[in-house]
């Protein structure tokens, strides 16, 4: 369970977000909507520990009742999925997947896990292909699997569907929701698209400009 308590964001004395409170249960996706420039991405950066220094953010974050807002980005066990899949172009799909598996998992087990992930995407034959040989939808799904393989404590989704065409989008959304439920971790989705929020079947937080 992820809890965001009293999150406030301001840029040069201009308040963008004021005292936001969100609670996300395991296996649930909460959607966050609002106009551009309101600070949605900054909230994600705050959660993942990569907030740029110019911004002033306050608030507390608890993952399974453990405070994580004081931890470094690496210790937070955060998984982030962005607009672009960011698959490493110089590695095969299989290598991309096994890259994310924690080091404690031993050699042949790693491979098996990676293959299972491939199977979930439904492209077992593409194990040794490079990312550029995959379609956009396949790349998005591999990117999700890769993030989940790193065993994150919670998941942040930064408009991951915006670059897909409409038909694919529906398919990928369903895939993402199913996988998050399977992984049973809290997820926060930032989006412009009301359809995205609806498809996630969870709460939807609408950010409006603060006074």
């Amino acid at each position: 369970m992820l809890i965001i308590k009293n999150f406030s964001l301001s840029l040069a004395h201009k308040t963008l977000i004021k005292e936001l409170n969100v609670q996300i249960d395991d296996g649930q996706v909460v959607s966050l909507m609002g106009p551009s420039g309101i600070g949605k991405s900054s909230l994600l950066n705050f959660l993942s520990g990569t907030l740029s220094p110019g911004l002033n953010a306050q608030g507390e974050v608890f993952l399974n009742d453990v405070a994580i807002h004081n931890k470094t980005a690496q210790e937070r066990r955060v998984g982030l999925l962005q607009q672009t899949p960011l698959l490493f172009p110089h590695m095969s799909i299989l290598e991309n997947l096994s890259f994310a598996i924690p080091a404690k998992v031993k050699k042949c087990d790693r491979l098996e896990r990676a293959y299972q992930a491939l199977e979930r995407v439904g492209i077992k034959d593409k194990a040794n292909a490079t990312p550029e040989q995959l379609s956009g939808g396949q790349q998005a799904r591999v990117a999700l699997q890769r993030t989940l393989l790193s065993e994150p404590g919670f998941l942040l989704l930064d408009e991951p569907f915006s670059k897909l065409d409409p038909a694919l989008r529906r398919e990928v959304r369903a895939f993402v929701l199913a996988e998050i439920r399977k992984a049973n971790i809290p997820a926060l989705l930032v989006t412009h698209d009301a359809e995205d929020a609806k498809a996630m079947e969870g709460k939807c937080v609408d950010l409006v400009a603060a006074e």
Partner: protein
Amino acid sequence: MPLKSVRFITWLVALFLAIPVLVGLVGTLLPAFHYFPPLGEYHFSLTSWEQLFQNNEFYTSLKLTLITGIIAPIIALWIALSLLAWGYQRAFFEKIEKLLAPILAIPHAAIAIGLLFLLSPSGWLMRLFSPWLTGFDRPPNWITVQDPYGVSLIFALVMKEMPYLLFIMLASLHAIDARKSLEVCQTLGYKRLTIWRKVLIPQLYPIIRMPIFIVIAFSLTVVDLAIVIGPNTPSTLAVTLFHWFNDPALSTRFIASAGAIALVIIIALVMLGWELAHCLFTRLTKAERSNGKRAGLTDYFLRLGVVLGLITLSSAFISLIILPIWSLTRRWRFPDVLPSSWTLSNIERAYPVLLELSSNTLIIALVATLIACLMSALMLETKRLTKQTKNHPFDWLIYVPILLPQIGFLFGLHVLLIQINLNGTLTAIIALHLMYVLPYVYLSLKGPYLAYQEDYLMQANRLNNRPWFNYFFIKLAMLKPALLTAFAIGFSVSIAQYLPTLIAGEGRYGTLTTEAVAQAASGDRKQVGSMALLQAFFPVFVFWLAHALPPRWTKWRLAIYLRVKKCYKQIPTNS
């Protein structure tokens, strides 16, 4: 790179860049004012300057330096601009573009030697037209190369500098959006060359100012090229100074040092004059630009430049073709167009020498370039982290070694090498090469490195937190094409170095370049041809690798992986 204490590293690297330059300058400046403890001179005086100004050779060689060093960059710039204006975005021009990188990679000494073989009275050009046209049965007693006016030197300089300028211009064109300007002006009815003259060249100039200054500094100070193909007795100032520095009478060092300082001042003055001339030129042509004429007589300047450019490019190619011909020649009498008998024995005979020279050359080039690549990555990473995009100290410090005359401050640096007992070692040669390789590697890596999408590395660290591992195997691995190109450029710069090898190595380590230059005048064209050929071969080969490897790398790596790794086989791919 997960760097801590960025400021500290910035200072350290800046010091590392500045110290050799400062030591070199001080090491030249002090003897110029007669202060030189190794020779027991502890008192400052102006005697070396008086001697310099009374020396006739100084004035004659200065005159030659100014003639060649100013005319060559002007012609090179003129031809490069003409070729660009004429050929930009035409299909056949892309072929010329592809030839530029290999021409740039070839050490200038190799091209100069080829040019010597082409233009000398017994050269290929004369053979092609003899005796049927000229009536000569034996080489005429003309002075066609190493002429006292430096014409052949200017030709060789243009041959080297024009492709470099053209290359830089092509790389900078995206910054001024040339294609759109061309389209807009063409719809207004302007002729192609006029558009370039009135609209594009004035925009392009400020971007390529620094490369032009590099070219000017090179023309004014080059030693090896001038030894091979320039006038001798008197030679250009740089060559004269080189002889003075090497004079067995150590006291000549004082006047040589004064001359070297004079050369630094001359470079600064010429650059200043160049900028003033540019301002004046802009003022004079400003009114003409907006007079509404869609074509003009001055377009013919560009047309003439194109013709000269094509002649220059083809001479460069012919010069390179002569090298392998000479290295395979057994008998080649004068008016014959081709050798009458061929042989491999030249190469066999020279094999032990060539092997030693090549291994020296390659060790120096590989080590220096590898260090330069790592240092460039470190410098660019600190630059990225400081987020100070403009006027970062590295960006101007890096130019200093290229803009200063090698003659002069290398001899000053040599004193330091003696002090720390490194003179005549391979380490010293590599260190001096590094000083000249680093700027080119840094500048060529800068664009792609800073444009790298950092999101990939951040995602990698989120997925698997191994910052150093990810830096090398994600970021640097993704920058492979840029890194390899930078490596190829650095490698070719190192292969071409003449003075640094000679001064740091004190002649104990010969490279292909030092030997080829030393023997260029010897008349043994067969052996010199082999050396120059190898000298040209290595950089071109590395450039080819840098071009051919990156697109295939991952495919090949995966193919090998599949054969070797057991685990991959245990789980069948088609089940």
